[in-house]
């Protein structure tokens, strides 16, 4: 093997990884390398070009392209919206049913706030994306799905909220405020279960195979199992309070 060919082989191998839209530039770099004679110059040139071939500039990446800009703004709006919504829940949590936090005896639940913020952002991002893209069907699809999920969560949570109110005279008398944060968490979990399960149910109803994307399915089922177990344990933990008559339940 002629050692002079090694830079060309290196570049040739790297160019095979280039996307088709950049193939002309790969050929251009190879043609330019063919003009160079000095071994050091050839190596330096081939090495630099191989780097470009392996990590070529994305089309429109020099100045952010439309798709990147769309998602950046979409995620920004979803983040802001969920921050505002979560802020309302946090306000209720801090000023209505948490005298210990208000008096400074208990820490402000920043971690809960952050977690809920992330979850809400995750839910709102596709809705905002549909709205911004001017795709009413996509928007309708997401709003319908999210609405149905919210309703599902509400139906599962409402009986326990009623039990909490009915079986605890201290809440009815106004001595203790209603635990909104607890029921917000209790509502959010079945809502997420519904949202995560929807694509699987849709595929099954359409007669499609749910095994087409096994890794996504595995992640989804894992998430569902995690949230369902969490929700059941949460209910079991809180059931004495819902049933009433248990002193000092928390």
């Amino acid at each position: 093997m002629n050692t002079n060919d090694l830079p060309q082989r290196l570049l040739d191998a790297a160019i095979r990884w280039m996307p088709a839209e950049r193939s002309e530039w790969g050929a251009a770099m190879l043609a330019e390398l063919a003009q160079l004679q000095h071994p050091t110059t050839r190596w330096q040139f081939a090495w630099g070009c191989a780097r470009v071939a392996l990590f070529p500039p994305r089309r429109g990446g020099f100045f952010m392209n439309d798709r990147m800009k769309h998602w950046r703004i979409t995620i920004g709006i979803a983040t802001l919206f969920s921050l505002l919504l979560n802020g309302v829940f946090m306000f209720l949590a801090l000023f209505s049913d948490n005298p210990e936090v208000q008096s400074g005896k208990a820490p402000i639940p920043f971690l809960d706030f952050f977690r809920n913020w992330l979850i809400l952002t995750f839910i709102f991002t596709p809705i905002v994306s549909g709205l911004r893209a001017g795709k009413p069907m996509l928007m309708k699809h997401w709003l319908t799905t999210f609405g149905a999920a919210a309703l599902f969560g509400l139906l599962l949570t409402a009986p326990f909220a009623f039990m909490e109110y009915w079986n605890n005279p201290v809440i009815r008398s106004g001595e203790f405020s209603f635990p909104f944060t607890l029921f917000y968490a209790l509502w959010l979990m079945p809502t997420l279960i519904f949202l995560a399960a929807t694509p699987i149910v849709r595929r099954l109803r359409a007669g499609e195979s749910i095994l087409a994307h096994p890794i996504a399915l595995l992640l989804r089922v894992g998430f569902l199992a995690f949230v369902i177990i969490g929700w059941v344990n949460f209910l079991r933990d809180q059931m004495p309070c819902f049933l009433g008559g248990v002193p000092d339940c928390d």
Partner: protein
Amino acid sequence: MQRNRPPSEQTMTVLLALADNPTEWRHGYDLCQQTGLKAGSMYPILIRLADRGLLETMWESEIPAGRPPRHLYRLTEAGLALANELSEKKALAAKAKRVRLRPRLQGT
């Protein structure tokens, strides 16, 4: 939609090198030698300039025997306008720097 982020120092160097003789077709290694940039910096700049319509490209038509055709580059009208604009800004910035330095020089 594109953001009007100012070009990097290296991009400006390439634009100004190409604007030296805007009608002439240049090749990659020639530009590397003139600007002192390595191929790993030069080609991404050329690719991005071409993406933005500031650079036109063609393959060499008259090929000397024994070597493949080279890829050639020159500025488009938009590229030349940008290069001229950047050149003027650079000159103004240099002038402003001199003006700012003058009082200090007089004081010494």
